[in-house]
């Protein structure tokens, strides 16, 4: 029997790592405005956790509480089981990489990186050695040691900020959208480097962003925030594959939503477009009278003659956009516009008649509470 075999410490069957940070019932209000409410969250040691949400969802407030720059109005934050609600940032083994990066403009690259060591009272030679070591880790050339930080490019500044945070040797690193002002291509590179750095250092990373795309690339787990609450938390696969509601679903990207009503016989009737639909059962076995069907554009197909699908809609293509490797079609179905994404190889021929039949299978769509 498998159970009788002594547990192999290296096996994947290990219990999930114990939480390093625990948040219980966190609320933060500013006057009458509640920025964050009802947050319960266990951050696992060594994980890369990303909190995503639109602006104003409370993610920055949450991060500031974790870093010690704000104190919760209610609830407890514990680090290794110790209450740290009122521990100031300079006494926490955590470090925040600011959105603005907050590099000291009057200090050189090397002085910026060595700053936490100087504060700790490390002597100048050891500081320099460690700073150079960290510059190697973040891939900054040694010659930059004496360079003015304000003369560095955006990407170089990112690396300086990262190295400076690492010099503090925190157990948990926080990131407040540090990549938001970086151009797309460099951003992709830095995302990968950050992910590599996470693996190399083994530290716990908590990253906040409004870009789910960024979150998907880097994170072990993603928490989606909306109006001060975490609405869903899970692996990127879970967030993408099983969104709990329409908000999460739409946050992931452009989607097609159709409002439907349940008929007594268990089939569904379209509300904004006529038709009868077969749907996957709602999440958690909920019984709904009204629901939203959400179909991602990449799961919507254009049916050729003889092709079948669980659900069909008749429409007219009225617009198409190139997305590089894919093409997005806007298809008018009654008063609704549906989006379909096809790979370039399967693009529609440029025929005069743009009448098409759309189709999707029940298993490729989500049935969500309205």
């Amino acid at each position: 029997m498998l159970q009788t075999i002594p547990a192999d410490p290296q096996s994947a069957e290990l219990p999930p790592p114990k939480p390093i940070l625990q948040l219980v019932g966190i609320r933060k209000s500013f006057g009458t405005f509640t920025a964050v409410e009802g947050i319960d969250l266990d951050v696992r040691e060594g994980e890369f956790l990303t909190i995503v949400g639109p602006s104003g969802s409370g993610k920055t407030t949450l991060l500031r509480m974790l870093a010690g720059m704000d104190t919760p109005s209610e609830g407890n934050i514990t680090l290794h089981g110790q209450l740290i609600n009122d521990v100031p940032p300079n006494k926490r083994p955590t470090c925040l990489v600011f959105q603005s990066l907050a590099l000291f403009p009057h200090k050189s690259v090397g002085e910026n990186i060595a700053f936490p060591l100087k504060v700790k009272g490390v002597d100048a030679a050891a500081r320099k050695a460690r700073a150079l070591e960290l510059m190697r880790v973040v891939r900054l050339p040694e010659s930059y040691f004496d360079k003015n930080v304000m003369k560095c490019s955006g990407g170089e500044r990112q690396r300086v900020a990262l190295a400076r945070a690492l010099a503090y040797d925190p157990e948990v690193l926080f990131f407040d959208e540090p990549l938001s002002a970086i151009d797309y291509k460099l951003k992709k590179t830095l995302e990968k480097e950050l992910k590599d750095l996470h693996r190399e250092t083994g530290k716990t990373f908590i990253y906040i962003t409004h870009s789910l795309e960024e979150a998907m690339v880097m994170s072990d787990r993603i928490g989606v925030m909306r109006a001060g609450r975490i609405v869903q938390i899970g692996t990127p696969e879970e967030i993408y594959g099983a969104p709990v509601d329409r908000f999460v679903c739409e946050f992931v990207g452009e989607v097609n939503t159709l409002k439907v009503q349940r008929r007594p016989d268990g089939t569904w009737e379209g509300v904004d477009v006529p038709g009868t639909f077969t749907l996957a059962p709602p999440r958690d076995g909920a019984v709904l009278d009204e629901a939203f069907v959400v179909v991602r554009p990449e799961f919507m197909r254009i049916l050729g003659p003889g092709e079948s699908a669980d659900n069909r809609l008749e429409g007219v293509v009225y617009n198409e956009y190139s997305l590089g490797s894919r093409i997005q079609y806007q298809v008018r179905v009654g008063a609704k516009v549906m989006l379909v994404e096809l790979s370039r190889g399967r693009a529609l021929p440029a025929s005069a008649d743009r009448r098409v039949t759309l189709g999707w299978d029940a298993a490729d769509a989500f049935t969500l509470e309205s």
Partner: protein
Amino acid sequence: MGHKRTNAAIWSWTLFVLVAIYLPIVCGALASFNKSRYFGFPIKTYSTEWWQKTLDSIEIGMIVKTSISIALLVTVFSVVIATFGALAFARYEWKGRKLYQKLILLPIFFPQPVLGLAMLLGFNAVGIQTSWMTAVFAHMIWIVPVVTLVIAIQVYGFDPSLEEAAYDLGCSRTQVFREVTLPLLWPGIWSGMLFAFLLSWSNFPLSLYTTGADSTIPEWLYAKMVAGYTPMVPALGTMATLGAAGLLLAGGLVGILLRRRAAA
């Protein structure tokens, strides 16, 4: 064509303004080199006699010392008060900040002779004997607001997350101030120091009422113009102007050097 004419207009206007500003100063300097005791153009005989007399005068030496002492003390006190005042003015959100921002600037707009008179009456009322030390206080009433404003401009251009970052990286509050706040405010503080010194150095109306038996350079110049003119008056006036210009020049130079070192 039009461009050329515009250029000519700009040049002639600039020249007019420069002449209007600097000609009187040049006249003062020329008057101090007049050998004759009485003022008159054209100057018949030039001499440095009155400059020598000015430099040798014990009375003028004391007056210069008084002016320097007042200006130095005003500089030190105003800069300390104004630095924290500027942080309260521009950096922190607090109840009553808007009111403070208005009240702190009001003394700049008071007519100085009225302010001086009010100070004199105030000192009398509380029984303080006026001397050059009361003048330090009086100057500060007017100079602290100016310096606060000068430093506040620097504070506005400073990202508060820099202080938070330093605090987050392990600094105590004092370390944050020493390592981040102070060095970043330094250009503003430096300009504030120059402003404080020069505004005190050249102040007449406040000194007139509040120095008591002591006398500053502007006061002495005025008194001697009213009664007992000699070319020592324009000589000291020219020296005071040159001193101020020299200080400003040196101050600017230090500023440039520091910036260049920081940029290296």
